[in-house]
């Protein structure tokens, strides 16, 4: 019997991240070095990253509208030209990793500093509107919750987006971050609701 001859009987199941992840995964308040933060433009060559500089912020709520202070939110996105770090040779030396991670604050708020992604190729030769993938982990979540957000100023492109097309029209607004500004900076706001009247749409793929 060799190890290579053994086919696994299935994938390893998920378990909750629990309440105590911070000192390993978001350890800014602890003595372990941080590997990933909410600033996707932190590298020394960040000035060369392609795309409009933006802040993404919002708050996370449970089904009764209580804020969730103990969640971890991850984002994964392309740069301003629709390229993914690690998957596009043009970005091999870029400071842009395309991946961010934060823990929510006491009031459920999360904030990322990044660039607005460009449009992306879609299935069957189509095109996807600019979007960012979100992975959500928390005490009480046995599995990662997966959603996406889009940008309010791309409304014209949303009609042709193959993923938004799968979302009932009256729920699409839960996936659209609203463009605004704060002291000259572009800020998109997106609240995430795990339930209740404004429940966010979540995906599987």
């Amino acid at each position, binding site marked *: 019997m060799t190890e290579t001859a053994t086919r696994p009987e299935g994938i390893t199941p998920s378990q909750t991240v629990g309440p105590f992840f911070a000192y390993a995964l978001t350890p800014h308040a602890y003595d372990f070095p941080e590997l990933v933060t909410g600033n996707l433009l932190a590298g020394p060559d960040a000035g060369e990253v392609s795309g409009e500089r933006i802040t993404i912020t919002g708050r996370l709520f449970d089904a009764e509208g209580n804020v969730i202070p103990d969640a971890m939110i991850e984002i*994964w996105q392309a740069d301003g030209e629709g390229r993914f770090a690690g998957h596009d040779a043009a970005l091999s030396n870029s400071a842009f990793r395309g991946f961010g991670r934060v823990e929510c604050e006491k009031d459920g708020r999360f904030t990322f500093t990044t660039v607005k992604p460009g449009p992306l190729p879609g299935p069957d030769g189509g095109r996807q509107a600019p979007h960012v993938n979100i992975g959500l982990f928390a005490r009480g*979540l046995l599995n990662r919750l997966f959603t996406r957000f889009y940008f309010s100023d791309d409304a014209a492109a949303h009609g042709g987006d193959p993923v938004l097309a799968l979302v009932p029209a009256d729920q699409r607004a839960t996936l659209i971050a609203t463009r605004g500004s704060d002291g000259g900076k572009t800020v998109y706001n997106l609240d995430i609701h795990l339930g209740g009247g404004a429940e966010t749409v979540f995906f599987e793929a």
Partner: protein
Amino acid sequence: MSRIYPIGSLAAHPPSLSPGYKSTVLRTPSRPLIRIPQTMSELSGPVFGHESVGEKDNDLTLQHAGEPLGERIIVSGRVMDEDGRPIPNTLIEVWQANAAGRYVHVVDQHPAPLDPNFSGAGRTVTDENGFYRFVTVKPGAYPWRNHHNAWRPAHIHLSLFGPSFLTRLITQMYFPGDPLFAFDPIFNSITDEKARVRLISKFDLATTEPEWALGYKFDIVLRGREQTPFEDPHHD
């Protein structure tokens, strides 16, 4: 676009609403998940190189001036896909309670002692054959407030990336023979018993180091299959 990762494999995961674990009730969306195509956004994912981890990051007993208290253990295994192919160069992050069952976290109020020589956080990157190894101490069980006299079985939290957004996994590794298994709603949230027991590591004499530390093996299987039809290897 074809579906690269089979969706049926997700049946191994626990249902998101698992009322025995009370925190799931207000944190589970009421509407079913919408199944979307696997596009470039899902089929790509963050890449972390070996430079992401420090030399001592995979030895949780070396991170302070002295040695932590507790039973020294070596946790090792292989990260692979659903066909058993190794997943090389992928980041694993771990965290755990100390030997007394206490986490280094402001919210942990369990009146068990902190250990000045143990933080309980580590990370490593799998080698070219998908192997990983951590040295640590065996975590203690600890109480929580889910129900009267609720105790979590000893466990180590693991966070893995794999090659794409869809292979991301956060899970917990347990220890064989734990008397708390039958009473733990988080462990038992996995309704498929075969999947559930995959979270229990195995004591392993081969990786146990004489007069030093006990070895536990824990292999991890992430989503993903060969695109060509799989030929089952011959078994006797």
